[in-house]
């Protein structure tokens, strides 16, 4: 198992380099001058030149990138051109919101999706058709619209949950949770559809396999066959799908955070893009990439735990 993790980690280094290089090069084409942005229009030419030099803007892009990487290795992601806040600090402050959304959404979607999928696999043809349509509806309708509809019904009409805004956990765990209910549900609906469909298909093909017939021929109860043996056989495709879904949740939070005005990475990245706040965009891109790498790593570990052939090696 460790070789797999090591391999994945080794691959993630060039990946991070490539992603940061792509954004760096792209951002270097952005019209406008960061030094001007920081200083405003009233600065003197001397101040301006000094800042340009301090920000390495007088250097070629490759050198700028190299200097950026050097700082990165020392844990310095620079600071925002607007607020002057350290980018690392900003990420540390916004990350918990996004993580809560992604993890909450993944848990909800996996749980509901797997149960629904297994249920529909063991029912008749009509309920399967109905389920197909419902799951397609869930995956087809854009999540920001679902979010708006949930707000319209549960927040505006009934007032069950706050429509927008965020309460930190430390302030009030109850309100923190209440504020996350609608965002997590909106994020996970597409995922529920995705997971349940994959689970259903995997379940149906697993139930047709020879070893399931052996178990049936041995008089094993259907509940044990379905929930113990067949579900275990679906492990690999389902875990892969959960991983893929989690990866789509990461950018998915951008829209959801904007609908609910949650102070997460998604709202931050949209604002930073609009303001050409390069260091923040850079830092966030790297953070998002690291999140993707961590999810892939988790999937790999789960994979090797699920597969007796890999585990044995």
């Amino acid at each position, binding site marked *: 198992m460790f070789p797999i993790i090591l391999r994945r980690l080794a691959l993630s280094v060039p990946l991070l380099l490539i992603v940061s290089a792509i954004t760096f090069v792209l951002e270097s084409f952005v019209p406008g001058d960061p030094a001007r942005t920081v200083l405003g229009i009233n600065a003197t030419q001397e101040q301006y030149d000094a800042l340009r030099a301090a920000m390495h803007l007088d250097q070629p892009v490759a050198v700028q990138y190299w200097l950026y990487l050097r700082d990165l290795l020392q844990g310095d992601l620079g600071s925002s051109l607007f607020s002057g806040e350290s980018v690392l600090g900003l990420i540390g402050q916004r990350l918990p919101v996004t993580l809560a959304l992604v993890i909450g959404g993944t848990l909800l979607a996996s749980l509901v999706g797997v149960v629904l999928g297994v249920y529909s696999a063991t029912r008749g043809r009509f309920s399967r058709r109905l389920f197909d349509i419902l799951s397609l509806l869930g995956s087809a309708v854009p999540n920001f619209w679902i979010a708006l509809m949930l707000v319209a019904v549960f927040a505006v009409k009934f007032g069950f949950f706050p429509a927008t805004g965020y309460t930190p956990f430390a302030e009030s765990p109850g309100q923190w949770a209440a504020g996350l209910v609608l965002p997590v549900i909106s994020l996970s609906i597409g995922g529920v559809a995705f997971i349940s469909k994959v689970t259903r298909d995997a379940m149906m093909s697993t139930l047709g396999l020879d070893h399931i017939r052996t178990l049936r021929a041995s008089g094993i109860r259907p509940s044990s066959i379905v929930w113990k043996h067949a579900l275990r056989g679906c492990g690999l495709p389902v875990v892969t799908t959960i991983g893929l879904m989690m990866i789509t949740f990461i*950018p998915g939070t951008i829209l959801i955070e904007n609908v609910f005005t949650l102070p997460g990475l998604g709202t931050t990245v949209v604002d930073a893009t609009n303001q050409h706040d390069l260091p923040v965009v850079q830092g966030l891109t790297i953070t998002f990439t690291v999140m993707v790498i961590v999810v892939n790593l988790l999937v790999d570990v789960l994979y090797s735990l699920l597969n007796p052939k890999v585990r044995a090696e």
Partner: protein
Amino acid sequence: MTTVEAPPKARSRPRTNPFAGIWRRPVPAAAFVVVVGISVAVILAPLLAPHPPLAQDLLHTLSGPSANHPLGTDVLGRDVLSRLLYGGRPTLIGVGLAVLVYAFFGMSLGILAGYLRGWTDRVIVAVLDVMLSVPAVIITLAVLAIFHQSNAAAMLTIGFFASAGLARIIRSSCIALREELFVDAARVSGLGPARIMARHILPRLTGQLLVPVFLFSGNALAIQTGLGFLGLATPAPAPSWGGMVGEAAQIMQQDPYLLFVSGGVIGLMSLSFGLVGDGLRDLEQDRRQATGGRLRRPVPATAPQDANKPSDAPPDGAVLAVRDYSIAFATAQGPRTVVDSISFSVRSGEIFGLVGESGSGKTVTGLSLLGLLPPNGAVTSGSAWLAGTRISGLPERELQGIRGSEIALVSQEPMVALDPYFTIGSQLSEVVRRTGAVPGGKEAVRQRVRDLLTSVHLRDPDGVARRHPHELSGGMLQRVVIAMALAGSPKVLIADEPTTALDVTVQAGILDLLRSLRDEHGMAIILITHDLGVVADSCDRALVMEQGRIVEEGPVEDIFYRPRHPYTRQLIASTPSIAPTEGRIA
């Protein structure tokens, strides 16, 4: 030259057009009409729209549907229908561009990697890995920062990064196709790589392109409208579907109506893309299974009628009896009878051969006795009796009580007959606990598992119990499967081609084991096989089946030395023998 088999019923020509047949399915067909209809309406917006999309009518803001404004007006009194028609343009253009890039890069990268393999493959796969790990939406935001509010630039970026997923699918199908025997055969026939790709590979891949394209169209639509919603893709007053949702959201508290209209058209379009994609996939699956259509309902099993008719009672002395037993399968052409009113009895302590070639109905007969027919098959007449109890037509719940403890199965492919995720020991103990009625706790179950594994002559029972199926050879696995079948001390053991997948030296050992188990436990064994050598080796009596009917039944000596039916004679004559020919009776 001997007989030439009759060709099976001519089927229609295999279709290569992936859309063929979509009109016979109402839901995907309707969705396809919606996709085309909305697209055409959006393209013809200047002709169809009742008002200019930006014309304000401040006297009629937020009016509901009326004759002048079929879908009402927005907060500035602009006509909603006209804005939807014009607003679809950036959205659909964006989706179209994304799909073009997606299909182009996905297809070309996938085929190059999958067919050329080697270094090209390794490089492309590495690139694909990077593309899939990049948070594409974030890069898109960066692109939007450079090309301010450029819908095209954003959607091209999305299409490019998403194409990695398609390239992976195409690559693996391409690799699978390369490994197909017919590609080997084409190579041996002397075809060059270009011709193989053109004739054998490309046509089979284009069919696979459509499903992902339609599914991706839905995603691209969601992303495009999402960008529009954030106000990133289309400059302000101009309408776009996502932007209209954003405008509607701002007045949601006063009037949620516009939210339904704008979101509804996005949802409808997106759903239609998905439905067409799913429909095409179903069609493709049907074609691959060559059923020519979906299977209809299984044939209903006839109710166990006349249960007390005298002729329906089990004959004395037989542990298993089958009377006027028929089995049918539902097919696209209607029900097909595969076993046609057969009757036979098996006595305790006897090895009874069920002999026939493919399509004779021998395996189906065996499975039906356990109630394990596939869902589209059913017993349509007659009855089966096990130790004086009627077992045909029993509800599933009661069958579960019988399976494993009264009647058990040893199947053909030992390599796939056991659950790969559990150790031998845990699978056996589950069966022991379920059927073995072992008094006492864990230790008693473990002892019983050890005894069972010993009884099938496995040398190191504890070691075997700790292993997973993939760590054992085919012969050992078949012994484990037999041990599992013995767990409930069944009266009848159905062995369906138990040695067909095994080497001949291993086969001899398994047949020896079955015989010795019969001697020890006195159960009846029904040995289903196509191999007359196996019948001669192990069976006491046998039944020869041809196309669902019994052609001959009797002690094996009679069958081999005094065959009455010409089919039996032909079978014996065709079976090659390793023995010196003078020993054979032809």
